[in-house]
């Protein structure tokens, strides 16, 4: 079971300005160079952010994997690529194992797992920026519209 | 015209102070006060000393006794003309002094025993005391070269520029008998020539000796102004005297409460009190915020019936108290007390804002 002090990303749509800085920094974080200018101007194929920004009228919010306790993507994965990180409880995708059967995409009720735009072969999703103290999207949200919090 | 320190601007000073009182009204001569203050010579620098003595004019105890300080003859005459308008002068004479080379006398020192001709009714809301205060205010502010040193009954203030013990000798204080003496040795931060600036400061039968510098002076002065107290000279001492006069004589507050006004309790102390008390001290503080005396000070305030010693809220200046039989002593240093009372019954350091009060029993 997932223990309590594990942190999750909480979305507060009422404060999302829709600036998409989270997306920018997510992209950089998942680029080869991790350098913002290079990531945008020097890397081909262009790195892919693991965060989805939804917008409708003045409402907007950033959405990334919820790392569900009862994750259907884990049940659906036929290769064992999708796994739960014991320490953080995060649901991660081992892209070397993934064959791109898209079962996870089919079952994720948040639609936050995407086909890797470039290879088109493997699933790509939020990894909570493992290694970073807090995910970069949260660190760089200018309005605390997404926050990192122990799960209740 | 050159600005005169004390008269035209404030100058900070450190001081040695002592107050001695027999609560039974036993009169004793000034020698004791001189002895005590002289052992705190360290605390003064020869630029100011003075004494107040109560019970020294028993034969004229019903007359207002004005001690005056004149720069020049015509100041004296115009003052006397003014006095004669409102008072009958029962007696006037020079204040006896002896020649002492350490003190160069440069003023005319004169005392008057007066009887007011004014019926209180003439001055509607004002009573005789108020009228006397007005007189003093007028002389001090309007008549150039004249200064009222003291204006009480059966008491007097003797002061000048010099070491206090020399001033004492100069005024021959050993020849006076009083039941309450206060003495002051001053350490001003720059030369002062003017005798009026020395302590004690007096108004009516109040006398104040004071060691300290009052940071709240500006607002205290403006507050007093509302009640017609012209701070004609610039000494903190004056402010304290007027505050006592206002709060005790006019607002009819006792000395314990006055102490809680001048050195008010901290809000958190008030917070911790039971409701009733809290309400009381809140009212006190919000009403008299402008009378809060801030900054370091230790004072001895006296009038004919009382001697009060008080320390600032943080006790930033020294003050020791002692009792022996019916005697109360308040001084800057214990040594001064022991000098004149080797075996006191009790010696203690009053806490910040805790008044030491001696009362005349009758």
């Amino acid at each position, binding site marked *: 079971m997932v223990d309590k002090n594990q942190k999750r990303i909480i979305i507060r749509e009422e404060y999302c300005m829709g600036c998409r800085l989270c997306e*920018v920094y997510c992209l950089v974080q998942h680029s080869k160079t991790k350098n913002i200018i290079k990531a945008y101007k020097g890397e081909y194929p262009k790195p892919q952010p693991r965060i989805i920004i939804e917008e409708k009228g003045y409402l907007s919010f950033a959405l990334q994997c919820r790392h569900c306790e009862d994750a259907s993507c884990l049940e659906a994965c036929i290769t064992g690529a999708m796994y739960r990180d014991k320490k953080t409880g995060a649901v991660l995708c081992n892209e070397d194992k993934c064959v791109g059967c898209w079962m996870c995409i089919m079952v994720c009720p948040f639609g936050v797992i995407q086909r890797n735009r470039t290879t088109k072969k493997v699933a790509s999703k939020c990894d909570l920026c493992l290694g970073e103290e807090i995910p970069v999207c949260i660190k760089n949200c200018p309005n605390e519209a997404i926050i990192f919090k122990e799960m209740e | 015209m050159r600005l005169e320190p004390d008269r035209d601007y404030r100058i900070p000073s450190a001081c040695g102070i002592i107050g001695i009182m027999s609560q039974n009204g036993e009169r004793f001569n000034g020698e004791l006060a001189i002895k005590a203050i002289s052992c705190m010579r360290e605390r003064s620098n020869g630029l100011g000393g003075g004494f107040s003595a109560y019970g020294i004019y028993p034969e004229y105890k019903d007359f207002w006794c004005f001690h005056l300080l004149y720069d020049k003859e015509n100041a004296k005459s115009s003052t006397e003309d003014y006095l004669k308008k409102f008072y009958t002068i029962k007696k006037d004479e020079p204040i006896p002094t002896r020649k002492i080379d350490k003190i160069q006398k440069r003023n005319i020192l004169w005392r008057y025993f007066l009887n007011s001709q004014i019926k209180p009714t003439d001055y509607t809301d004002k009573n005789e005391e108020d009228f006397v205060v007005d007189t003093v205010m007028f002389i001090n502010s309007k008549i150039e070269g004249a200064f009222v040193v003291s204006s009480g009954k059966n008491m007097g203030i003797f002061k000048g520029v010099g070491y206090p013990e020399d001033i004492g000798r100069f005024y021959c204080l050993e020849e006076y008998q009083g039941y309450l003496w206060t003495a002051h040795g001053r350490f001003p931060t720059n030369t002062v020539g003017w005798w009026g600036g020395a302590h004690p400061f007096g108004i009516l039968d109040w006398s104040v000796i004071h060691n300290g510098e009052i940071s709240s002076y500006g607002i205290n002065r403006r507050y007093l102004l509302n009640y017609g107290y012209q701070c004609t000279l610039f000494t903190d001492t004056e402010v304290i005297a007027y505050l006592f006069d206002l709060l005790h004589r006019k607002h009819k507050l006792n000395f314990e409460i006055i102490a809680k006004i001048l050195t008010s309790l901290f809000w958190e102390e008030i917070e911790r009190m039971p409701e009733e008390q809290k309400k009381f001290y809140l009212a006190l503080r919000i009403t008299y915020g402008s009378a809060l005396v801030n900054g370091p000070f230790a004072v001895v305030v006296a009038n004919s019936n009382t001697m009060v010693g008080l320390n600032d809220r943080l006790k930033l200046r020294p003050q020791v108290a002692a009792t022996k039989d019916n005697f109360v002593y308040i001084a800057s240093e214990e040594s001064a007390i022991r000098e004149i009372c080797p075996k006191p019954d009790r010696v203690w350091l009053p806490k910040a804002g805790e008044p030491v009060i001696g009362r005349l029993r009758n």
Partner: protein
Amino acid sequence: MTKKTAISEFIVERDKEKCITCQVCCRMCANDVHIHDIETDEIISDSNKCVGCHFCETLCPTGALVIKRNPSELKINANWTKEIINDITKQAETGGVLLTGMGCDKPYPIYFDHIVLNASQVTNPSIDPLREPMELRTYLGRKPEKIEIKDSKLEIEIAPLLRLETPILFTAMSYGSISLNACIALARAAEEVGILYNTGEGGLHKDLYKYGKNTIVQCASGRFGVYKEYLEAGAAIEIKIGQGAKPGIGGHLPGEKVSEEISQTRMIPVGTDALSPAPHHDIYSIEDLRQLIFALKEATRYKKPVGVKIAAVHNIAPIASGIVRAGADFVAIDGLRGGTGAAPKVIRDNVGIPIELAIAVVDQRLREERIRHQASIIAGGGIRNSADVIKAIALGADAVYIGTAALVAMGCHVCQKCYTGKCNWGIATQDPYLTKRLNPEIAKNRLVNLLRAWSLEIKEMLGGMGINAIESLRGNRDQLRGAGLSDTDLKLLGIKPAGEAW
């Protein structure tokens, strides 16, 4: 008309090397300065639209953006300055009154900057606020002249008072002129610090009733949202007569700003202009004011202080005295540099007197008349930092109102475009795209920090003067000296020139 004759105020500099075309600036500019061109995948910025709020600049992740004042210069002319020419041009184009926001930005003397404070040396130990108690608590309202005691019991009743933990309040800023999130931030900050904020004339949104004990509710000439519950909701009531930014002028909240929520709060139909008349039409003289004051006291059963806010004008001292005699428990004075959400530029920049002088003369007058204790003085209009606060108090104010400073703490960059309702910082706007940009939690914390910082600085300055309770500084002008002021100024301010001893 196609020919644009006004010169744009700012230019947007974009470092193409650094720009990654992330389009954050495009998404965030409410003035549509930055547009992404799909063909060239470049961002084109139209400097003419830039108001200089620097929102884009602060968000740009690569620091590719710099907003600069437009260096394009007209022939130097001390008389016909760029600003004057631009104003004329605009009026020639629009034929209307020039509107502006925030406080007067003209270089009138700022007396605060010519007043210096005292500190203890040798003869008087300064007090270390970290070791000794340092009291800023302030009570506002009517205070007795003296205490009467009968057998050690209080004989007098103390009138209702406002308690402040630090002598600063948030000035009147209406819901309408600023966003609900901004109001919430102010209310929460006031609650946390133990001070009060002021509803302005915008009424009280239902979500704000819970902050009642930290609220001053305003009753202005428009009477918007004024009713029983409203009056009872606050800790005090303020009758607004005037405002430093526009003395003698009413308020005008354009209909497009009157949303559903605002219409409910102000009790006017959606989309209708909210017009506050220049005068209260039930106050044509001082006795009318007295009636209103007591009407409001009656309405709240004498449980709340009732104060009056006026703009600092030539006759301020006698006016204030009259107000106190009319029964006000506090007088709020708003100086020449006081802010606004919208005011005619010509009024803002030319009417009223600086707050420093107003404080000095009012405090002096009330003392001379021996009614100083009957009412507290709250001074506002150009209070920029803790030094201004402490100087205002030493001149004679009981507490100060801050407005612009609070807005700046929340993000405002003083672009003075509040009246457009396009505040990119989400403060002076009702546009749901923009209001959500102000997270009340963050804003609240920033306000609390500001007040904490100022309070600490005030304590340090007090300690330096050897004072450990703010009431010993209030009106204590001996602690002030004028540097480079004329004798007349010094006389009016009641302070000595620097260099002169006690």
